[in-house]
C-alpha cells in the first residue's frame, strides 16, 4: 500500500537541517547522512549527499529526476563490479 498523500513525503528532520545548513554556507561539501529512508525533496537538487550503505558513504549528486525517490535507492549495499567492456562514463 502506498503512503497517504495527506501525510506528505517522509524526511528525517536532521537531513533537512543539514541540507539547509549546507545550502546557506554555499560550501562545496558532501553532506553525510545515514537516513536511506528519507525522500528526496526539490530543495535537495544540486547538493551532494554521502548516503551510508552500511560500510561507507556513497556520493549522490541530486538531480531533478531523483525527486520523490528515496536516498537508499542510489546507495547499493552490495558490491558488484561486473565487466567494464564498452561501458561509457559521461562527465556532466
Amino acid at each position: 500500500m502506498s503512503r497517504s498523500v495527506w501525510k506528505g513525503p517522509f524526511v528525517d528532520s536532521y537531513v533537512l537541517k543539514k541540507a539547509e545548513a549546507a545550502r546557506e554556507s554555499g560550501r562545496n561539501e558532501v553532506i553525510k547522512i545515514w537516513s536511506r529512508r528519507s525522500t528526496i525533496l526539490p530543495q535537495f537538487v544540486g547538493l551532494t549527499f554521502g548516503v551510508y550503505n552500511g560500510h561507507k558513504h556513497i556520493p549522490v549528486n541530486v538531480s531533478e529526476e531523483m525527486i520523490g525517490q528515496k536516498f537508499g535507492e542510489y546507495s547499493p549495499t552490495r558490491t558488484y563490479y561486473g565487466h567494464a567492456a564498452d561501458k561509457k562514463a559521461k562527465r556532466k
Partner: protein
Amino acid sequence: MSDEMICVGAISGSYGIVGETRVKSFCADPYDIENYNPLTTQDGTRSFTLALIRPMKNGFVARIAEVETKEQADALKGTQLFARRDQLPTLPTDEFYYSDLTGLAVYDTGGAELGRVKSVQNHGAGDLLEVQLPGQSATVLVPFTQAVVPTVDLDAGRIVADPPEGLF
C-alpha cells in the same frame, strides 16, 4: 592503448546439437558484441567470428564460424571473448570508456597524488570513480563531474580532481 584487449563477453557452453553456442555479452548494449568481430582469446591465439541468432536467458544463442560441432562448442565453455581497444567506436568529448579510466593516477589540484582509479561505478546518480588510496586497501568514491574532475588526460595517464570537503 590500441593493443589493449578488452573482455566483451564469454562463451558459456553449447546450445543444442548442431554446434551453436551460448554467449554472454558484457557490453553496455548486449547486441553490440557482434560489432566487435573478430573476437579473440586473451592471448590472441584463437579468433572467433560471432553471429547472434536469438536472445535467451542470460545471453544469446550464437553461431561461431569456426565451430561446427557440439563437441567443439562444449570445449569452448568458459572462454572469454576479447576485442581490441581500437575496435571500440570513438567517443565525443567528456565521454570515456570505463576501461580507459581504470588505472589512471588521480592527483589533487595541488599536484599531490590521491590514488589510482580502481573501477568506475554508476548506481543511478551519475558516474563515480572508485579511487584506491596509495598503500591502503581503502577506496573513496569520487563523483565524475566537471566540477570535481576538471581534467582527464588519457595520454599522460592522469586525472586531476578537486574533491569536495569530507570525501577524502
